[in-house]
Structure formats: structure tokens, C-alpha cells
């Protein structure tokens, strides 16, 4: 496989983490989290990619013709569902925190600290 296919997920991973580490707003932080998440999706899809192969659906082309790996796509699909749940939960938590504290800056929200 082409090495560039590994560089893109690595870049997405690192830039997303940089965003999380330096974030001053939880909604921004949650956005960065989804960037990290997409890095894993890009990685998985490029693992299953085959040059010149079609989608793994054999309705319109003959069985046995080259297709990309459907297993990784199933993995990605499963994780997208979980990822959407977690993002929704995080945003709901952030909303509730904002109602109570009036801020979403991680540096000022410190659990159990005066």
C-alpha cells in the first residue's frame, strides 16, 4: 500500500489531539475529538482499499470481480453509530454544564476544585 495512505490518518490524529490539548472551549474540543475519530476511519478505509476495485455490491457486476474489503467498511459503520452517540452525549453534557457554570472553558471547569 502507498505510504501516503498512512500519513493522512496520522496527520488527522495529531492535529485533532493538538486541538484537544490546547482547547479553550468544550464545543471546539468535541469537534477536535471527531477529527481524531475520523483519522481512524480514514485508516480503516485505506486498509481495505484496492486500486481499481468497485464497491462490494454484486448486484450490477459479476460475482468474483474485484471489490474493496467490506469488513472494514462494516467496522467503520459500526463505529460511526457509537461515535454519533458519544458526540451527542458530550454535547448534551456540555450544554448542561454551560447552564450551571456559564462557561465552557476546560481551564475554568475543574471538577471538585474551588
Amino acid at each position, binding site marked *: 500500500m502507498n505510504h501516503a495512505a498512512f500519513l493522512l490518518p496520522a496527520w488527522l490524529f495529531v492535529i485533532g489531539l493538538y486541538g484537544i490539548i490546547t482547547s479553550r472551549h468544550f464545543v471546539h474540543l468535541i469537534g477536535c475529538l471527531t477529527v481524531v475519530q475520523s483519522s481512524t476511519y480514514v485508516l480503516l478505509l485505506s486498509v481495505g482499499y484496492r486500486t481499481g476495485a468497485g464497491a462490494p455490491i454484486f448486484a450490477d457486476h459479476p460475482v468474483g470481480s474485484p471489490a474493496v474489503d467490506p469488513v472494514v467498511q462494516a467496522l467503520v459503520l459500526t463505529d460511526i453509530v457509537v461515535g454519533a452517540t458519544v458526540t451527542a452525549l458530550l454535547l448534551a*453534557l456540555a450544554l448542561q454544564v454551560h447552564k450551571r457554570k456559564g462557561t465552557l472553558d476546560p481551564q475554568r471547569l475543574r471538577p471538585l476544585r474551588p
Partner: protein
Amino acid sequence: MDFLAPLTVALPLVVAAILIGGAHLWPSQWPDAVAALTAATVAIMAVFLAGAAAKAGPLVYWFGGWTPRHGIAIGIAFVVDPAGAGCAAFVAVIFCASFVFSWGYFDQVHARYHALMLIFLAAMAGFALTGDLFNFFVFFELMSTVAFALTGYRLEASALEGALNFTVTNAIGSFLMLAGIGLLYGRTGALNFAQLSRALSGHSADGLVILAFALLIGALFIKGAIVPFHFWIADAHSVAPSPVCVIFSGIIVPIAIFGAARLYWSVFAGSGIAQAQLRPLLVWLGTATAVTGGLVALMQRDVKRLLAFSTVSHMGVLLVGVGLLSAGGLAGGMLYLLGHGLVKGALFMVGGILLASCAGIDEIELRGAGKAFPLTGIAYALGGLLLAGLPVGLEHQGRELIDAAAEAHGYAFLAPILSATGGLTGAGILRGAGRIFLALGPEPGEEQQSPSEEEREQQDRPVWLMLLPIGAMLACELMLQAFPTEAAVRVAAASFTATGSVVATVLDGATWSPPPAPPGVTETQMMGPIIGLSVALGIAALELGRHHFPRNLVRVADLALGWLFSALDRLHNGIVGDYVAWLMLGLLVIGGVLAIG
């Protein structure tokens, strides 16, 4: 018999769906009873499975009948070995105790709490039984997602902030794991543990395999609260409702270390990842975790936060047991997991009684408040002594096995260190017991107000009903020693680590020949308990009697040790970005050490 394997997961899921479907129809105590009964049923099924697997070898259940063709796994399998089934049974027992403890606690939310908890139980049972890497990941994710929701349940500021930190760090853990799975799949084209193991064995581990291993193990260490991945734990455990904390500290954290052991032996044992690098790495990470957790626990005045950090410390000991990479060490780790879960669960329940009856969880504000609850106080002190190293019970047996395995691998010097860390956590608990239940220690002054907000858990629940599971769990910890638990766990550890035989059973349907169990400990070493107990009692007495010592002496001691504690305190600063930075550093260390070797 093997039809029971999927039922242990399916039953709680179905009951959860029924409970949530009719949430407003059930009379108020019903969900409590149904949930406790379901957990008990799961426990019984898992015990049967464990018994059958101990007799006949791992039971393999292929979903939908998709059995392997020509030694290649196509479908998804549950591989039920005695250790996995035993773990599932233990999980269900703790859930049952937690449901009894929370009787009447969650009346206002109807059955929603019970449904979430049952999904939680299903996820953990599946995590312990599965033989497929992606399935493993899905159950891991399910476990995390339910835990996030249960943490923020109270919708108060501290609970929400704790839940945010918990969710962000653990979500990153899930991504790491998925990336690791993707890399492994790209290399081998397999997701079944046995298939992966066969594909990886015989080759030397290259960068890709090492990276995948580091990502997977790092993800499990985040959940397993290993230093420096542990920062989220106190923020989450100190704010979640006490019955949930029982599950969090008692099993969800240890089960992640169990998962790491599962991954190592089921997939990577033959992959050429050098034991010469991996063993010291895991053992030293474990030791660092045990020491850090013990020291930080000692600094806490919030009882639940203290217990959370003591869990960190004990996870270090557990990791040492697993990280010795021998059947004996693993058997010690498993016994330790059982003992720790029972004791820590009981201690968190005591925290729950304090929150319900005394409307507080801060040790200094509660000084003397527990005088009306002598039995609770005795249970708390007994838990502290057991964690400190009282030479009875499962936890002690586990520690002995770990010490013996450490000695066999040239780490004999670790035994006293690990005993002392047990003493540190015990000291914190005994200090709390003395202050809350006996009103020892100095009078709190004005400046001693607790930094945390007011909190109180559902009152007017009978104290005896809350004491019942505490007593039962502590009794289990002490009484199971009389049964051949230790021998059974050693047999389970032997078949857990027999990678080659398991692979042949799963893929080729080969008949199982039981591997020899690692030897038990014949001679009781009294050194460990003496060190642990003297550290615990000594520090607790020093802290409670602080005001009787000359002022200058106290000041000198503060100067000598203050820098260490204030540095540790500054590290646990509650900022999620810093936690993530630490996490990446830990990942780099793991990957780096393995890559250099």
C-alpha cells in the same frame, strides 16, 4: 451447554429492553427486584459455563453456525474459558450486590437506571467471553458509553464536569483501539483471536505489529487507570452515584486489565513481541501506578476520591501480576481481581451509606458523624485492613502468588514495595474510619470547609438493607478462601495462557488436553502483611494524632514531604487537555520501549 454463552449477554439486554419499554407501568420496587434477579441468573449461568469449560476445555460458540472452513474463521465466536466465564460470573455477582444496595435509590427515574445497568452487565459479560477482536471492541465501547451516561446522571455541575473528562479521555481510548484493530486487520486479514494468533506467530514483530499492540494496550490502560493514563478516574468515580461506583472501581477498571491479559495471550503471545522488553515495561508501569496511586490516595479528604485513587494503586499491583507474563503471576492477578472487587465494592457502599445518612462524603466535615453507625464503621475499617494486607482472604492469596511469580522472574525486591503501597491505601481508609466513626483527630477549623459542593444521595432507605450486600461481599472475600478457589483460579490461568491449545480448539476443533496448573504457594510469607499493616496503622495514627506532636516536628515533616504531595496535587488538575497530553506521553513510552527492543 454452550447455548448458555450468548444467553449471558442476551438475557440482560432483553430484560433491559422490557424494563425501559414499560418504564412507567412497573410498581416502584419492581425494577429493583427484576434487575437483581437477572444479575443473579446471569451469575448462575456463567458459573455453569465456567464449570463446563474447566472440565472439557474452552467451549466455542459460533454465532449463526458460521463455523471455520479449512481452519479459517468466517463467523464471530464466543470462546468460553474458565477464566472468562468466571470473570463474567464475578461481574454478575457484583451487579447483583449493587442492585440490592441501590434498592429504592432510583425510584424517581423509574426503570431507566436499571436498564442502563443491565446493558452495562451485558457488555461486560460479552467482553469477558468473546473470542473476536471487533466484538471485543464493540463490547468495550458499549461498556464505556453506558458508563458515561451513568456518571453524569445527577446533572449537577461536578458530576457533569467529571463525566466530560471521563468521556473525552475514554473516547480517545476507543479510537486508539479501533486504529490498532485496523492495523492488525490490514496485516492479517483476520479478526478472530485464534486466527490472528496463528497469522502473527512465527514472524518477528515489525513496526506495524508493535504499533498495533501499543495502541490496543494503551486503550485498555486508559480504562484500566494505569499511570499516566489514570487521570480521569477520580473525576469520574467521585461524582458518580455510589452504586455505580461499586461497579466502576470494583470491576470495570480491573476488567480492562483482564482484557489486556486476554489480548496478550490470545493474540500476541507468539507474535515475536519480545518478553524481555514487555515484562519489565509492564512490571515497572505497574509499580509506578501502585506507588503513585497510594501516595495520591493518602492526600484525599473526599472518601470516594480516596477510594478511586486506591483503585489506581491496586490496579498497579494487578498489572504487575499480569505483566510478569507467567501463568502463576496471572493466577495471582485474577485472585487479586476477585478480592479487590469485593473489598472495594463494599467500601464504596460504605461511602454510599455516608452520603445517604450523613449527607456528606468529606472526611473532615464528617468527623464523628458516623458514631451512630458502628457496623458500617467496622466494615469500613475491615476493608481498610484487608487492602493494607491483612493475611486472610482472596486478595492476600493473590498477592502471595504475585510475589512468588515476581521472585521467580528476578523481581523479588518488588514484594515489599507492593506491600507498602497496599499499606498507603489502607492508611487513608483507616484514617477516615478513625475520624468519621470514632471522632479521632483534631477539631476541624473554619478553613477546613470542604471544597466540593453539597451532595446527598436518596435518603430514607433502610441502613440494614445497605449493610446486607456489604456484609455479604466482605464475607465472600474471607470465606471463599476455605473453598478451593485458589486452586480453581490456577487451573483457569493455565488454560488462559495455553495459547496454542486454545487456537487449535477454536479453529481445528482439536480435543483439549488440560495444561498443567502453575504451582501454588506453600509457605506463608509474613513479611508482606507486616510491612503493609505497619505502614497503614503507622501513617493513620500519625495523621490522626498530628495535633499531639510538637508543632516544630510537624512543620519539619511538612517541609520534607510537602513538595512531593503538592507536585502530585498539581498534576491532577482536572484539565482534560493535560490528561490527554499525559495519555499520549504514556503511549509514546510504551511504543518506544517495545520498538527499541
